[in-house]
């Protein structure tokens, strides 16, 4: 069977549990938070690695962001990916869904396409979940979304996936190539392979073919009017504090039995 060529799109985000909200300003304190690969993207990566385990092939990790994201992405190499492509350029900054999906699609074209393009269900910082199908549209290929399992058949050029929906499930089949979005927590991402960890974290060196390639806007055959802030129709017109509802904050005290009596009364009165 022909080998599979996969691309996994990942985003580096601040660790949600380390992002604190300033109680006064209600703004995010991202500075003191460490970053990580967006957890749903790790599920996408694991799904791609599972197919590589079964059928062989190559996996390219594709990401967009500052060069400082590179060390976080190398975790992917240590898990079994073959190469990292990081799209890094000020011109890419400020991209909304339309510009982001366009830029990723241009990078995938430059890679010569892929049999499977994996994405996480959503990003933990934005949680919009609209990138996978937008990307499929730019690439003009099929899609399978919110998958918990996948199998591929390169001989017949098919991918088949299982998704959980509406209290049940469905199994869908599409022709390759296709975009796959992976349901959060669909699988248990593997640990780094310590036999290749040193290799994975080997620094970039001049004159040596590395495992990390950084592409700027000029490296992609991209329309400058379609990338970054320029290519983003939507803009943030205002930021507001989330209104917090006034609650009564009445503490109920006593023994468990006494508290239970009071709670039952409260439930009766308010139901």
């Amino acid at each position, binding site marked *: 069977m022909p080998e599979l060529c996969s691309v996994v799109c990942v985003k580096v985000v601040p660790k949600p549990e380390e992002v604190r909200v300033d109680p006064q300003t209600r703004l995010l304190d991202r500075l003191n938070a460490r970053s990580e690969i967006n957890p749903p993207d790790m599920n996408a990566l694991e799904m791609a690695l599972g197919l590589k385990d079964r059928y062989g092939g190559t996996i390219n990790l594709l990401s967009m962001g500052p060069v400082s994201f590179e060390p976080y992405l190398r975790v992917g190499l240590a898990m079994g990916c073959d190469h990292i492509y990081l799209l890094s350029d000020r011109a890419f900054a400020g991209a909304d869904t339309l510009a982001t999906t366009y830029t990723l699609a241009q990078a995938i074209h430059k890679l010569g396409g892929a049999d499977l393009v994996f994405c996480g269900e959503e990003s933990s910082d934005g949680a919009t979940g609209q990138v996978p199908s937008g990307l499929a549209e730019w690439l003009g290929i099929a899609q399978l979304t919110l998958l918990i399992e996948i199998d591929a058949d390169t001989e017949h050029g098919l991918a088949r996936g299982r998704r959980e929906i*509406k209290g049940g*499930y469905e199994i869908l089949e599409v022709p390759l190539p296709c975009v796959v979005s992976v349901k959060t927590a669909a699988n248990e991402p593997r640990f780094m392979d310590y036999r290749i960890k040193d290799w994975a974290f080997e620094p970039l060196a001049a004159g040596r073919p590395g495992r990390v390639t950084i592409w700027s806007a000029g490296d992609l055959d991209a329309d400058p009017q379609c990338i970054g802030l320029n290519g983003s129709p939507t803009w943030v017109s205002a930021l507001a504090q989330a209104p*917090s509802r006034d609650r009564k904050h009445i503490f109920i005290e006593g023994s468990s039995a006494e508290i239970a009596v009071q709670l039952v009364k409260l439930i009766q009165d308010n139901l």
Partner: protein
Amino acid sequence: MAASLFPPNLENKILLVYLEQEQGQLEGVSLELLAKGRELVDQMNQFESSSKWKVSGLLLGDQVEGLATLAIACGADEIHLAEHPLLQNFTIEAYSRAAFQVVMETRAGVFLLGATPDGRDLAGRLAVRLRTGLNADCTGLEMEAENGILVSEISGFGGGVLAMIQMQQHRPQMATVRPGVFSALDPDPHRTGKVIQIEVDLTPEMVHTRLVERSVGHGVDLRKVPVLVAGGRGMHGDFDTLRKLAQQLGGEVGATRPPVDEGHIERERQIGQTGVVCSPRIAICCGISGAFHFVVGIEKAGNVIAINSDPQASIFESADYCVLGDVHQLIPALIAELEKQGWSASSSDEGRGIADREAAYA
């Protein structure tokens, strides 16, 4: 900046709502969007009496015309109906093609979809095909009366920050809206509207997605339950006790993200920013720390009771009634007290089962 397929000066004053249907039933979020669309359009038309904004529904399927009547009763002025055997089941190819055709024929200024799995897939495809912007998973919508600009509210990650997003030069102004943030109108059988039949040209070769197998249950809709019993990490996976309590109170069980990720409870019961936003009369939060991601999901609850052993738990800031103590003692005590007072888990029993209480509401 690259232009959308049609510019603002060629838009029609149409607020188009995608009417998602499954086996002859309209999705709740579609009815919620009709109600919000009605409100926005009425405001626009009131601001300028010459303005003629209207709410249009986009209904795709096979033999679904009957749903048009319900959509009109729930706020639509007209329905664009495309029926075709290839629209019987949702496939992204057939549905995006038909929806694209209707958007281009109507040149709708605004296009709203529910942020459901299919709604998100469809919106993501169409926004790119139309070369327009998409505001995803919105928690609020307003329109600026003087210029018809849609302002979408999106809750930012982790923090209590809301971002207002809009676009000026691209049409349609697209948004997907989270289920449960708006309320549907009660159907008014006296409302009238017209149904516009759309001919769509679909052939089997266009459809690449093959449905191999499908088994859809009824699922559970936590948005409208009277009582929500929610558990967090502090329950240590003991959701059976919470199920019992929920059953006694005629409610349902929900959870924060960790118990869902750990497999203690179904994902469709996750409450909060990436889960369900619900509006029960009473929410009982058990062993929940109170992270913002969760709290947004109970913001609309009538009364919040929180039980937690940590006096610093931020859930108490979001609660009306706070109990400092061990959930593993307090929940059984509460269940026992309810039983003592005749709240039976099986509603058909004598005493004050929830069925009787619900009957009293009716």
